[in-house]
């Protein structure tokens, strides 16, 4: 297991979060404040746009000119624009071709959220949309942090967006009860968390290292990870997504006294938005830890995509 250490370690300047019970109200308020363009977005793009806008507003920073190539945008999502795809496919199955909507078709690409944020805020640098499953948000934050450490970006918005609408949640819930399943992943919830990262400013949290890999059989070893991470020493392990209980138990055993918390128990299963959400709430997971200790955020998808971020003050 090779953690990639980031030197310089990018700083998390600010985060924008649209999640939980207030998500719809928060999103509606942001849409109300904004121009007509944002009202044309689908839920997926508008969630991402709102979280990105909140992060920029909170930081008081934005690209100085439209198309600024020093600003990048790296996002992750497991479902992407699934709701728009379902709507377009439904129309395709039930209407004549002439009655289909070109505007709706343009929303059926997973990187639509990048496009909308890029247009709204003038972000012109590296733009990527990772769709590797629930770990995609952690992968995106890792990628952004690496690009900053390499000097290829000065600022990066990085995070995750999940927008399962009611039909997707309902269908996913039915899949949970497929007879061959030995473990039931929880019902999906919508959320967006986007963080502004840079190496040019001070900030409360730094991303020190990351690891990305594939672990379909749940053999990822927390003890090996902790062994590899002698500095900073890890004070808490935050398991971001729902993982089978036997895996959590094994990790708890391997943690050997290091506190292990399960974020999904607090926020619901927010897929790829989970790791960025954990990053946005890192202070909460650092409570009571020695100042120099870090936390290890572990994000894992049902297909085995696994990513870990090491974060410290």
């Amino acid at each position, binding site marked *: 297991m090779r953690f990639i250490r980031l030197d310089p370690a990018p700083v998390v300047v600010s985060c924008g979060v649209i999640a939980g019970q207030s998500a719809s109200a928060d999103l509606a308020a942001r849409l109300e404040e904004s121009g007509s363009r944002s009202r044309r977005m689908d839920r997926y793009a508008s969630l991402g746009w709102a979280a990105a806008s909140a992060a920029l507003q909170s930081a008081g920073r934005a690209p100085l000119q439209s198309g600024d190539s020093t600003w990048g945008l790296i996002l992750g999502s497991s479902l992407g624009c699934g709701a728009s795809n379902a709507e377009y496919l439904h129309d395709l199955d039930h209407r004549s071709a002439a009655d*289909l909507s*070109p505007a709706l078709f343009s929303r059926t690409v997973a990187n639509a959220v990048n496009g909308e944020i890029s247009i709204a805020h003038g972000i012109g640098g590296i733009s990527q949309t990772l769709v590797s499953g629930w770990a995609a948000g952690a992968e995106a934050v890792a990628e952004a942090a690496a690009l900053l450490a390499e000097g290829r970006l000065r600022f990066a918005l990085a995070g995750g967006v999940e927008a399962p609408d009611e039909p997707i949640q309902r269908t996913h819930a*039915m899949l949970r009860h497929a007879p061959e399943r030995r473990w039931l992943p929880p019902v999906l919830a919508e959320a967006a968390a986007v963080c502004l990262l840079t190496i040019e400013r001070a900030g409360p949290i730094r991303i020190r290292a990351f690891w990305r890999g594939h672990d379909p059989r749940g053999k990822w070893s927390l003890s090996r990870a902790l062994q590899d991470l002698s500095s900073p020493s890890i004070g808490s392990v935050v398991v971001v997504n729902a993982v089978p209980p036997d895996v959590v138990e094994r990790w708890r055993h391997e943690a050997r006294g290091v506190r292990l918390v399960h974020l999904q128990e607090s926020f619901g299963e927010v897929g790829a938005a989970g790791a960025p959400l954990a990053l946005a709430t890192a202070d909460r997971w650092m409570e009571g830890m020695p100042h120099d200790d870090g936390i290890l955020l572990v994000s894992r998808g049902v297909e085995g995509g696994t990513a870990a971020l090491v974060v410290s003050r």
Partner: protein
Amino acid sequence: MLPRRRVVVTGLGAVSAAGRGVLPFWSACVEGRSVLRPIARFDASEFGSPLGGEVPDRSAGVERIGEELATGFALDAAREALQHAGLVVDAPATPTGLVVGTCLGEAEVAFRFLRACAPEAPGEMAPGVRLGGFTGPSTRLAETLRLEGPVLTLSSACASGTAATGLAADCIRRGESDVMLACGVEILSRFVASGFWLLRALASGPVRPFDRRRDGLALGEGAGALVLEEREHALRRGAGVLAEVLGSGSSGDAHHMTGPSPTGEGMVRAIEGALRDARTSPDAVGFISAHGTGTPYNDRMESIAIKRVFGERAFRIPVTSIKPIVGHTLGAAGALEAILSIQVLREGIVPPTINYGEPDPECDLDYVPNSARRHATSCALSCSSAFAGNNATLLLTAP
């Protein structure tokens, strides 16, 4: 700063409308032989009966995985690439990672799930419905080929294949893995054809990139796979080095969701990003594989961008589009065009842009019209553009 290891290409694999393998793909390109035919897989008459680049005999190949065609294409291309690289197929001795670039992934799996979400869908789940459209190809490739490195899926619409190759190279540079498979894959579906038809982007006849008469593109499908390797790792095991990935670039237009920036600014940023990443100057570039879809806006934008970056030299660099030959393969296009670029470096032959007849004053570069040309060069640039204003570029050099 993070370590910056050198990344080389040691294996190539392709599945396209020209057939299975790099050889039929390259032969069609060099011969300027279009393999586009009227779309047969579904009734495309409602979309003006466009031409399409369908993989012949979809059910052939080494192995089919149920109806999972994208996975089948990707797997065939990946196995060819691994074999070409001299790595053990299905059990790479070195931990190997994977980046798959795709628009829809395993589209039929995604569609089954999405149809199950419809309001009129029955309350009981039909067999075969599951999540994992995007990740279908990457998950199955990782499982079948026993890949243990990072397994990432990236979706930047039509720039996905190029962006995936750049990301895979970055994974090696940073030390995440010594060997990575980069793969772009897409299948041709009614879903995609209808959308391009709605946007009036399908050609009414032959696809004519950069020609004054151009009026759209033809869709295609397939997969391209490249084995990327840390240079010292490749040399230690005596692998044949086909090319080096010097750098990659990416940008957002920050302009429009479906139309490219008319000034070409986004593409300029992506090309300049690759040059900066490669720490090389525009003077090094001797061949450009263009996105060249054959749509009026894209080809004009791309020509402007090339002139803005390369200045007077732009008129002396051969620029080729293979879209009239195999079609626009969306998520696979960037990977197939990276393979094409490497073949140009190796063979010293530039495939033509076919169906070119009437010059457009706004597209006034050397598009290698209609016949292949001998042209030795050591550095190639491959460009891709996409919906949502994404652009991606790759800079490749001879070893």
